[in-house]
């Protein structure tokens, strides 16, 4: 590897992205933004996987990345479907309006 970047840099960026996504999921009130933050978490994983694959010379990680991308797309599809079903009933996509449970 004659590049300037070592694997640590990639991992740090991946961890930061993952944490931003996690914080977003926890703090955001808008379900659409929560979906986007979930995507961010999965993409952070992809970055880490590709970095590991590059530095270990073993291609399994890259293959897993493709699966992760596909799964992420499917997950968003399901998430949006649930959100649409919910919006039809409640006319809102904000978490503070979703309070029917637990009674």
């Amino acid at each position: 590897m004659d590049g300037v970047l070592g694997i640590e840099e990639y991992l740090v960026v991946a961890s930061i992205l993952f944490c931003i996504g996690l914080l977003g999921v926890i703090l955001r009130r808008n379900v659409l933004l929560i979906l986007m933050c979930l995507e961010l978490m999965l993409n952070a994983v992809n970055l880490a996987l590709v970095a590991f694959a590059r530095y270990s010379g073993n291609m399994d990680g890259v293959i897993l990345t493709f699966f992760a991308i596909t799964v992420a797309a499917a997950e968003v599809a399901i998430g949006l479907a649930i959100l649409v079903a919910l919006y039809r009933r409640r006319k809102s996509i904000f978490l503070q309006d979703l309070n029917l449970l637990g009674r």
Partner: protein
Amino acid sequence: MDYLTLLEATLPDLIVVVALFAALGVDYGLCQGKSPHERGRIAGEVSSIGLLLALCCLAFQWMQGSVFEIAEGQLNLDATGLAAKAIVYGLTLAVIRFATRHCPTTHASEYHALILLSALGMGFLATTENLLLAFVALELVSLSLYALVAFKTSSPQSAEAGLKYFAFGGVASAFFVFGVSYLYGATGSLDIGTWSDWSDRSTLFALGLVFVLVGLGFKVAVVPFHLWAPDVYQSAPTPVAAWVASGSKVASVFFLVKLIAALPPGPETATMIFAPLATAAIFSMLIGNLGALRQSNLKRLLAYASIANGGYLLIGLLAGSPDGYAASIFYVVVYALANVGAFGVIGLLSDRMKGDGRLEDFSGSWRRHPGLSFAFLLFLLSSAGIPPLAGFVGKYYLFYSAFDQVEMSYVLGELLSGRNGWLVFLVCLALVMSVISLYYYVLALKAFLVSEDESPHLDDDEGISPGIKLCVFALALLVLILGVYPGPFMAFLQAAF
């Protein structure tokens, strides 16, 4: 690996896939003019036939003594793997029978197809030793279950529960795959079978393992990843609640046990995950059991009970011996049988009463449905751990396997220090909590058995098809048999590790 072997090994799964498409195809091709109820019944029959064929195929492979190992642990179909699949498909069959009675929307065939799809995922999750396949299988299970939980589109609660399940599940699967990436980075392989000959235990490995456990902990609903459970169990269609509580737990525990059994030997590994797992077990038992005490809705009560059961399960994993692993699997299977049965009965009865499952809705069920109520009694008493039912034997094996690992010492300080101390404390807490759990189980049973109304005894089972009753009684019989005669099954599980 040639394709013929692959075909032969995955034949049961292929049958399920065919059944899935047949259910959809028959519904869309031939049944469009029929009523939703009729379409649901046909889709259910097609799915059941597929599952029965798959079970026959598994039995055949079992009798032939087939052992398939495909692509270095991608699929590991030895006797245990076949048994795991058979258990998952058997549970699916029961759930499909319950689901056939009443479809929450007009999309009857999709309902059954999604249940079959998640069953496929569970089958693969229970038999794989590869992190990639585990991830894909886990997602197949999760994505189908998100859709199923939100399936009752007429009810806003169902969609809300679906969203909650989705949000928690999405985070959990992100953690899972993040953990997988770290484990891959640390070991250079996605195959957990290679861990044992790998000696470098880095921080990367430990972190990755903890993240993967977070992802699985969500599926098993252990504290602190349990928040979705009560809402999902309460608001999802009842057969789906049964399915979330049974199938996905069984499959995840199978994989969890495989993961922990594959850890590189040595004290470092043990200490690495021991404390977090033990803490999760303690809080699951506390929050699950104490939370269940103040529930007035039967499904929520069972949800908290399932959180508590997640805590008990971990004790077997913490014992870290083959006996402990076998005990965990035995317990989760028994728990799943009882839970599918209990939710099945709840679904059958609450459909008729138009209630949403509050305890008082069930008052006097004993008079109207003596047979079903008796089965429900068996399921609940088994979960509470009353001998001679299977739940008691399961708990006995779990606690015994943990005590077996305690190094006996007559010095109290030695007995209660470090790992020993944790195990002793866990078992004592579990015993106390089992006693407490008796209270809420009996409370639920009281609702069934006692009623104010003194109307004459009437048997009101009409409209409940004999097939479904047969299914409930078969589950009850299994719970009884595994309690009275657990030896062979337990010996079989112990031989696997």
